[in-house]
């Protein structure tokens, strides 16, 4: 069977982890330009209704999980064939898998798995060290921690809305950090954030080892899972005995209102 035989379209929903305007969402959708997907694949990007300011504490992790869960909860009913999470933290992957039968792809676990197929060990290069815990969480969860040769940061505060804009000075630092990882034994470099996709081409052109671009990889793996009829194991991600989608929706509506009130107090106090 090939596409030419009239395969059905594959609809992928990518969950962006913040409330973003169209321009900010477009910067994330630019990941689609990294490599052409098969023609039958349709990808939509969706922002969350609310979010933590960034991903540096356990407070942030649980807020990220709940906001991404809400954002993806209706994906299957909306006709999507797979969900990709647009953050290497793999936020909400487990919760969404417990609620959805369609594949839910975490780019963190996916890139560590693929890196393990391409070399003995991989390294993770990232923007700032505040993100280190999100890597160890996923590595431990999928049992590939001992394949990680190291994690290195360039200590440049990221901007999850404008991404790498105005951060050209980061590129040489990323090269330097990646070379240190290679020195430490990394055979493959993984990017510590999907938002670093704008640096991927530069890194691949200047490093002697494969560099994985986690967002685009996740779209290809989503299509592969749909084509193979594979999804996550229900035994690993059991259903809730009492799902509460309406409560979750109400929580995020309330979170959105609270954020709006905080951002625009004059509008909501009148």
């Amino acid at each position, binding site marked *: *069977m*090939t*596409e*030419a035989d009239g*395969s059905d379209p594959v609809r992928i929903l990518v969950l962006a982890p913040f409330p973003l305007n169209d321009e900010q969402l477009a910067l994330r959708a630019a990941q689609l330009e*990294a*490599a*052409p*997907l*098969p023609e039958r694949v349709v990808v939509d990007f969706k922002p969350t209704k609310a979010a933590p300011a960034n991903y540096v504490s356990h407070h942030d992790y649980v807020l990220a999980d709940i906001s991404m869960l809400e954002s993806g909860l209706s994906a299957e009913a909306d006709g999507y064939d797979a969900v990709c999470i647009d953050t290497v933290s793999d936020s909400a992957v487990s919760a969404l898998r417990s609620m959805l039968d369609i594949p839910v*792809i*975490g780019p963190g*676990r*996916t890139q560590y*798995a*693929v890196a*393990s*197929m*391409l*070399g*003995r*060990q991989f390294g993770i290069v990232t923007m700032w060290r505040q993100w280190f815990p999100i890597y160890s969480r996923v590595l431990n969860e*999928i*049992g*590939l921690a*001992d*394949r990680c040769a190291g994690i290195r940061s360039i200590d440049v505060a990221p901007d999850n809305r404008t991404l790498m804009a105005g951060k050209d000075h980061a590129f040489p630092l990323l090269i330097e950090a990646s070379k240190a990882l*290679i020195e430490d034994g*990394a*055979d*493959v470099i993984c990017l510590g954030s999907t938002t670093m996709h704008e640096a991927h081409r530069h890194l*691949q052109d200047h490093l*002697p*080892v*494969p560099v*994985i*671009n986690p967002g*685009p*990889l996740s779209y*290809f*793996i989503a*299509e*592969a899972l749909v*084509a*193979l*009829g*594979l*999804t*996550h*194991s*229900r*035994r*690993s*991600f059991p259903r809730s005995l009492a799902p509460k989608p309406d409560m979750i929706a109400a929580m995020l509506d309330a979170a959105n209102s609270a954020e709006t009130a905080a951002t625009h107090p004059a509008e909501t106090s009148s």
Partner: protein
Amino acid sequence: MSRVLILVPFAIDAAGVERRAEQQREVSLRNDVTYEYRTVRAGPTSFVSPHDWLLLDLAILDAGLGAQAEGFDAVVIDTVSDSGADALRSMLDIPVIAPGRASLIFSLTLGRRFGVLAQWEPALARYEKVLDDWGLRDRCAGLEHFDTPPDFDTLLDGKEGAIIPRMEAACRRLVARGADVICLGSTTMHQAHSHLASVLDVPVVNPGPLSYKLVETLLALGLTHSRSAYPLPQQPKPAMVTAMFDAAAEHERADAPGGNDV
């Protein structure tokens, strides 16, 4: 258009190759990637001992050594043993897909623990080696076999009714041992995949079709294996490898094929 070479680990005839090629029709594939099959020229007859494993490593190396020069864009090894994959990676820049390690590692993205369905008891040693080599033992719920000598040529043809229920029973034993995902222990089990996937309540990874989707992904993203993990030899000896297999093929020419792979 990309060209992929699939290396078949036994010297089987066209009909046997066609039975392996059926795997292509079990999954939706891109129409800008074409696949060609090539069998090894000689090799082991059984696949149960280090003697056999070593011969197959060399046989696959011989069969794939010229792939890049011939214009292929990637190589897929059609055996979960991943025989010859490391040696080929050390000689080729194009991606070389090893479905064994790929399916076990990939299964970790789908569930906590995998179980491996093996053909028969003598095949178990090879999986034990893979689990150790790849450090995956603590994520493996177990190995179970269905006690049936393999037929690498005819696969399950004409024997489905007798064999598939035994495969299903072995899979259910793996689930009872805690497997959240089943990995088929051989690309030759592909004929049973749709039945097993439909009756089991855990994902069943079909290693051949998975390897085709991975090759598409690596080609599209411009990824290949790391040269630092698979260094080039300082002194490649392709002519020596070719000469060894000219001799091996000559030696085997009179013999009827027979044997079994993983």
